[in-house]
C-alpha cells in the first residue's frame, strides 16, 4: 500500500468528521427539525431540534471512531462486507435451484393452511398479481431488451375492457351469459391489450434506449388521461363499479345455490378469496409456462438476439418489426389478463389505479429480480410488494428502508438478484452465461 499512513486522531480525521456532521445537519435539519402541525389557524411549523442534534453528534463521533479504529490502512473496510461477483453467483445458482420448488409448494399450499387469516390470502393475491405483471413485462424488458415505462397502460386496457364488456355489453346483448362474464372477457381483454401493444409498438419501432423509455412513459400517461377524461365511455374519475365477480365456471360464491351448495360444502366468505387466489396463481403459472416455452422457440431466441445486437439480427433475415411487435403484443397480453383479474377482484376500477408509479413498481421488480430471470422476478415481487405491505407498521420509515434495500441490492448485485442467463439449447452441457456477457438491450 503506497498511501500515506493515516493518523487515528489527526487533523484529517477531525476534518472528515466535521464535514460528515455538516452534511448531516443540512440533510436532517429540514426533515427532522421542522414539522408541520394542524392548528386552529391552519398549518403551523413546530420546531424540534433535539433529534437533529443527536443525529449530528452520532455522525460526528461515529465518523471519528470509524476513522480511528476501522479505516486505518490495514484495518477492516466496509466494502469488504459486499460479497464479490463469482462466489455469490455460484451460491445464488444453488439457492435458486432449491428455492424454486419451495416457493411453488408454498404458493400452492398457502390458502390450505387451516385458520389462516384472510389478510394473508389478500396479500398473496396482491403479490401474485405483481409476479404475473413482472413476468409479463419481463418478455418486453428482460428478453427483448425494450425499456418500457408504460406497462401499466396494458394493465389498464385489460381492466377497462373487462369492466366495460362485463357491465355494458353482456347485460345488454347477451344477458344469459352474465355468470360467465369473466371467462368470456378474460381472453378478449388479453387480445385487446395485445392489440394496444401493437399500436404502441408501431411508432416506437425506430426508437431505442432513453427515447423509447420516454415514449412508452407518455403512452402510459395518455391511456390514463384518456380514461380520466372520456367521461361518457369510461365514467371518468368515478371509474366503473359493480363489476361482476369471477365465478367458478358459472357457479357463484353466494350463500344459496352457489359454489358451496353445489359441492355440498358449508358456505364461507373466504371461499371466494381462496378461489381468487388460485385463479391468479394459475394465470401467473400460465404466464411463466408460456415465457419459458417461448424462450426455447425461435421467437424467444430472436427476442434475445435482438437485445444482443439488432444489426446482426437484420443480417440474418430476422425482421425487427415482427420481433419487436410480437414482444410488445405478448407482454401486453399478459398485462391485460392481469388487468382483467384486478377488475374482477376489486369490483371497482378508476384511472387512479393505473398511475405511473405502478409502471415504475413493475419495472423495479423486473430490474431487481434480474432481467430475464423468472425466479428472480418472483422473489423481487415477493420482497417488494409483500414486504412493503407486511411492514406497514413502519409507516413513514418504510420508504426509507425500501430505498436503502434497493441501493444495497444494486451495489451487491448490479444486474439483479438472479443475473445469469440460462442457455436455451445446448450441445453437451447446459451452462449459464454470467451477467457481464449479456447485453442489457438498448432497443
Amino acid at each position: 500500500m503506497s498511501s500515506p499512513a493515516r493518523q487515528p486522531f489527526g487533523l484529517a480525521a477531525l476534518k472528515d468528521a466535521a464535514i460528515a456532521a455538516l452534511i448531516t445537519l443540512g440533510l436532517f435539519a429540514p426533515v427532522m427539525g421542522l414539522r408541520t402541525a394542524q392548528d386552529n389557524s391552519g398549518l403551523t411549523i413546530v420546531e424540534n431540534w433535539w433529534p437533529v442534534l443527536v443525529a449530528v453528534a452520532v455522525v460526528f463521533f461515529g465518523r471519528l471512531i470509524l476513522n480511528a479504529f476501522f479505516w486505518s490502512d490495514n484495518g477492516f473496510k466496509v466494502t469488504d462486507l459486499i460479497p464479490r461477483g463469482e462466489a455469490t453467483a455460484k451460491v445464488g445458482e444453488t439457492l435458486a435451484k432449491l428455492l424454486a420448488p419451495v416457493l411453488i409448494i408454498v404458493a400452492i399450499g398457502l390458502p390450505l393452511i387451516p385458520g389462516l387469516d384472510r389478510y394473508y390470502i389478500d396479500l398473496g393475491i396482491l403479490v401474485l398479481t405483481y409476479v404475473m405483471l413482472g413476468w409479463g413485462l419481463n418478455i418486453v424488458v428482460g428478453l427483448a431488451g425494450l425499456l418500457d415505462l408504460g406497462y401499466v397502460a396494458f394493465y389498464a386496457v385489460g381492466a377497462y375492457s373487462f369492466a366495460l364488456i362485463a357491465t355494458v355489453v353482456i347485460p345488454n346483448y347477451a344477458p344469459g351469459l352474465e355468470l360467465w362474464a369473466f371467462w368470456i372477457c378474460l381472453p378478449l381483454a388479453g387480445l385487446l391489450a395485445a392489440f394496444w401493444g401493437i399500436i404502441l409498438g408501431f411508432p416506437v419501432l425506430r426508437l431505442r434506449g432513453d427515447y423509447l423509455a420516454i415514449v412508452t412513459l407518455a403512452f402510459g400517461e395518455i391511456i390514463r388521461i384518456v380514461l380520466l377524461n372520456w367521461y361518457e365511455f369510461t365514467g371518468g374519475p368515478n371509474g366503473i363499479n359493480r363489476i361482476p365477480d369471477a365465478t367458478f365456471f358459472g357457479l357463484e360464491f353466494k350463500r344459496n345455490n352457489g359454489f358451496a351448495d353445489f359441492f355440498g360444502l358449508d358456505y364461507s366468505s373466504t371461499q371466494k378469496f381462496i378461489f381468487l387466489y388460485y385463479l391468479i396463481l394459475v394465470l401467473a403459472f400460465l404466464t411463466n409456462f408460456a415465457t419459458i416455452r417461448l424462450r426455447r422457440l425461435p421467437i424467444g431466441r430472436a427476442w434475445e438476439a435482438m437485445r444482443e445486437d439488432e444489426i446482426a439480427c437484420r443480417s440474418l433475415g430476422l425482421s425487427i418489426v415482427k420481433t419487436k411487435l410480437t414482444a410488445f403484443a405478448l407482454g401486453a397480453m399478459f398485462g391485460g389478463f392481469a388487468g382483467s383479474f384486478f377488475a374482477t377482484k376489486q369490483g371497482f376500477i378508476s384511472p387512479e389505479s393505473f398511475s405511473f408509479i405502478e409502471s415504475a413498481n413493475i419495472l423495479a421488480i423486473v430490474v431487481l429480480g434480474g432481467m430475464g430471470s423468472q425466479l428472480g422476478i418472483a422473489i423481487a415481487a415477493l420482497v417488494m410488494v409483500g414486504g412493503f405491505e407486511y411492514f406497514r407498521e413502519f409507516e413513514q420509515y418504510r420508504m426509507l428502508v425500501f430505498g436503502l434495500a434497493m441501493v444495497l441490492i444494486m451495489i451487491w448485485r448490479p444486474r439483479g438478484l438472479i443475473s445469469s442467463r440460462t442457455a436455451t439449447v445446448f450441445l453437451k452441457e447446459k451452462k449459464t452465461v454470467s451477467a457481464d456477457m449479456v447485453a442489457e438491450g438498448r432497443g
Partner: protein
Amino acid sequence: MSPSMSSDTILTVDNLTMRFGGLTAVDSLSFTATRGEITALIGPNGAGKTTVFNCITGFYKPTEGRIALAHGSAAAFDRLEDLTDSPEQFSRNGSDALFLLERMQDHDVSGKAHVARTFQNIRLFGGMTVLENLMVAQHLPLMKASGYSIFGLLGLPGYRKAENEAIDKARYWLEHINLVDRADEPAAGLPYGDQRRLEIARAMCSDPVLLCLDEPAAGLNARESHDLNDILTFIRREHGTSLLLIEHDMSVVMEISDHVVVLDYGKKISDGTPDYVRNDPKVIAAYLGVDDEEIDDVEAEVSK
C-alpha cells in the same frame, strides 16, 4: 468498362452510386461476381468498400443503380430488364430466381435472396452461447417448423425434429471451425480469432448463395489468417457458395481470390485476376503513390 456478363454470373452491380449529402461514397460502380468464385473488393481506406457491401446487403438504399442477384442458373438474367421495369422485388421461375437487391429490405436480402454477411467489427450475440448464435441464424426455417410459435408452444413433435436438424447443422459447422468443445460457452468469451470464424459459420447457417465478408482477416495473426483461407476455400469447394470479400490482407486476397475489383475514392480503378491487378500501374499508384515525374502520366491515364 461495362460489366461483362459471363455465362455463370451470380451478381451484377450496375452504376451503383451512393451519396451521403454532398459526399459521393460510391460513384457509378459496375462489376460482376461469378458463381462459385471468390471475388475480392479492395482499395485504400475510405474507398467506399463497406458502403458497397451495405448497399448489396440492404443496409443502405443506394442513391442510384441496380444490384441483381440470380439463384439457379445465370439464365435468370434474361429477365433482368423486364424485372427492372416492373415494380416487383424479385421474379421466380422454377428453380431460377432473380432478385433486385436494391429494392429489398435488409432482412429480406438475407431471408429471401440468401445473401449473408459478416461485419468489420464482429457482431455476435455475445450473451448467447456459440450454439445459440448458430440457431438464431436458422430462424426462418425454424420459425416455419414451429408453426409460427403455435405448434412449438404446444410442444408438437414436428418442431422438435426440425430443431434437432438445426442443431446437427450447427454441429457440422462447429466441427469445421473447431469450436465443438466450446459450443455451450458464451460467444463473447471466445478469443478474437474464434469469434471471426464463428461469425462466418453463423452466416453460413443461413444457407447463403452469396456470402459477403467484410475484412474477415482483420486482426488475425498469420496462422489464423491461414486457417481462414482454408475455411473460405472449403466453403467454396464443398458448398458452392460464391464469396464476395473486402480485405486488406493481401496474402488472403492474392492467394484465394479468383477475381479482384479495386476501388479508389468510390470509383473502380481496376478489375481482373489477382495477377493483373497486382501489376496494374493505377492500383500501384493508388496504394503506394507515384514518383513526382510520373504524376502527369498517371493523371492522364486515370482521367482516360
